């Protein structure tokens, strides 16, 4: 009998303490006591925190200027105000010939946006020098991350973009994880998270629309879903009631990656919300994240009640490098891409001839490469040209 009583006593003693300890553990690093609220210079605190955020990404030369001063023509750093919410732009990228061009023009756009933090995540095993150098010279506030998508999840580069294996998922998730690990859910850290692909086109107005997002905001996106633009349907109360799309409008969130932004605090407060990696149907990737964060009624329509197009889902053509040949015609020391240097070592590839054939016809008559001598001019056999093309890898 005393044994039972002892056991009971022990349990009753231990129980509240275990609960307390788990609570402590969950909120590890955060003060249990609230930060004194009279300190409305939570703004100065925000500045400190964001400065700490920037320290890993800023080089020694840069600093957050109060006034934009010009040292030389291009030394002007983007503007920063202590009071504005920070825009965290997450961009996954991967090596291909147009990568440097895409990132250059995206950086040129982002440089105009104040209070911007660019999280660039490479799909690679290591950070490439091309991207590292580009980021250093860009004068942007950035964080450079990388994670390699395992080959079984990678999209076949030659196939038409298969929506079943969404590209960039692991990279976006890594960025979300970085945000959660490096910005604790402290008070006053206002910000918005946006997923920007490196080949889309963004107007400057868009960034100012998304800056004032309470939970999640949405707007139209051009050139997606085979339409001029897709947009949310807004009812008379100014709330999102559906989706103006042709492709599966029954999706929980029938919206493109470029069509929504989420408040940073919401992301931080739901640490289990990530993009689903496997088993995601085409077009459902955005929903896989958003359904863990918001409901339809929480969405805030922007861009003049979703009547203006401020972002275009442009796609850049793959450049035809037919004249490079197996050994590579151009000087490998000149930095163009990492990709082409690596590809040169591959002996075969499976380019589809259809896209290359019409251009190839034109090139055929004037090709200076010795292999052209094997063929009679102006009469390329389709089969032969396919064989030839298969040796010219991109």
């Amino acid at each position, binding site marked *: 009998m005393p044994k039972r009583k002892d056991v009971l*006593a022990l349990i009753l003693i231990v129980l*509240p303490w275990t609960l*307390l300890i788990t*609570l402590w553990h969950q909120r590890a690093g955060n003060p*249990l*006591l*609230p930060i004194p609220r009279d300190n409305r210079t939570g703004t100065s605190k925000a500045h400190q925190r964001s400065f700490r955020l920037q320290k890993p990404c800023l080089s020694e030369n840069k600093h957050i200027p109060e006034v*934009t*001063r*010009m040292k030389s*023509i*291009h030394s*002007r750093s983007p503007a920063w*105000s202590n009071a*504005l919410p920070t825009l965290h732009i997450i961009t996954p990228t991967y090596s291909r*010939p*147009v990568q440097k*061009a*895409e990132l*250059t*023009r995206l950086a*040129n*756009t982002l440089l*105009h946006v*104040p209070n911007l933090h660019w999280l660039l995540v490479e799909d690679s095993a290591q950070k490439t020098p091309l991207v590292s150098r580009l980021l250093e010279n860009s004068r942007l506030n950035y964080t450079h991350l990388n994670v390699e998508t395992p080959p079984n999840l990678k999209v076949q580069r030659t196939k038409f973009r298969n929506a079943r294996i969404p590209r960039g998922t692991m990279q976006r998730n890594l960025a979300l994880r970085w945000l959660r690990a490096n910005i604790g859910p402290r*008070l006053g850290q206002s910000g918005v998270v946006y997923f920007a692909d490196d080949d889309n*086109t963004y107007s*400057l107005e868009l960034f100012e629309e998304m800056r*004032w997002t309470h939970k999640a905001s949405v707007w139209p996106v051009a*050139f997606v*879903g*085979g*339409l*001029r*633009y897709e947009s949310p349907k807004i009812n008379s109360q100014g709330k999102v009631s559906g989706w103006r799309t*042709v492709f599966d409008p029954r999706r929980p969130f029938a919206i493109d990656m470029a069509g929504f932004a989420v408040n940073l605090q919401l992301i931080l407060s739901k640490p289990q919300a990530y993009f689903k990696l496997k088993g995601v149907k085409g077009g459902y990737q955005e929903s896989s994240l958003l359904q863990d964060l918001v409901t339809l009624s929480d969405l805030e329509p922007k861009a003049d009640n979703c*009547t*203006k*197009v401020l972002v*275009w889902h*442009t*796609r*850049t*053509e793959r*450049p*035809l*490098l037919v*004249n*490079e040949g197996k050994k*590579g*015609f*151009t000087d490998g020391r*000149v930095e*163009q*891409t990492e990709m*082409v240097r690596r590809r040169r070592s591959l002996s075969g590839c499976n380019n589809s001839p259809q896209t290359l054939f019409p251009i190839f016809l*034109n090139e055929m008559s*004037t*090709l*200076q490469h010795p292999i052209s001598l094997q063929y009679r001019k102006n009469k390329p056999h389709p089969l032969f040209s396919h064989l030839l093309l298969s040796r010219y890898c991109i």
Partner: protein
Amino acid sequence: MRMRLKLKTVFVLYFMVSLFGLLYALMQLGQRCDCRDHEQSKDQQISQLKGELQKLQEHIKTSELSKKTDVPRIYVITPTYARLVQKAELTRLSHTFLHVPQLHWIVVEDAPQQTQLVSDFLSASGLTYTHLNKLTPKERKLQEGDPNWLKPRGAEQRNEGLRWLRWMGSTVHGKEAAALEEAVVYFADDDNTYSLQLFEEMRYTYRVSVWPVGLVGGMKFERPVVEDGKVVRFHTGWRPNRPFPIDMAGFAVSLRLVLTNKEALFDGDAQMGFLESSFLQHLVTMDDLEPKADLCTKVLVWHTRTEKPKMKREEALLKQGMGSDPDVEV
């Protein structure tokens, strides 16, 4: 008995203390988000911040960048034509140009009249611009289904830009005329990608300067080959026997040269790939070319091309009479 009593009270005390501690911690949970208290004043804050943001943007626009008047001006001639991606292309191009001081953008539309889209866009862009238009005659225009290498594009529009420059050069006097002596003319297509460094390279051009262009001619890049500071030949995989086997984005001409050689124009009937040569051969020989971009070893401009967006579903909707709102400008 005493011991027991003591133990009991100790136990009770212990339990009460831990219970209170738990309750205290739970209260902290509830208090974590104190933003609810600030919800009402937040809207006021937002309008305050929006005002600050506007001030900041004004500051950016009128910053010392535009006041820098002591550098040579760059006149950029961009031919453009109406298609779905036109606004997107011009938008991101303008973002690049906004960083370049003393840039004057000459946009020439391939249209019978200046379109609302481009006019509105240019006036909101914040750039110094000139809006022109010149329609390409039907015989020279690409038809639907023609591959884009069949006929040279943009020749008439570029010539119109040159005509405007020559007109401006003849009507301007004094300080402005002096400024034109050092100015440079560059032909920028609306779908290419330009780095900011490129404009600083081309700014100081005496006659014609050249540099490598990426992703063109079926190669990673095309470039002039430089020996002893002079261009000796061109490294290109496609018809290197042209007088100037260089892409439109790979050279810049001093305005002085353009104004003194009034007959130098682009030949719209030229063979494919000879458009640049048809213009340059009136102006300069290979010896006189000035190599830029670290003696033509760096790629600062890329000949990117944008895919045509797929409109299958839009077309299907149009057939049903349910196409997207044409009032929404894309």
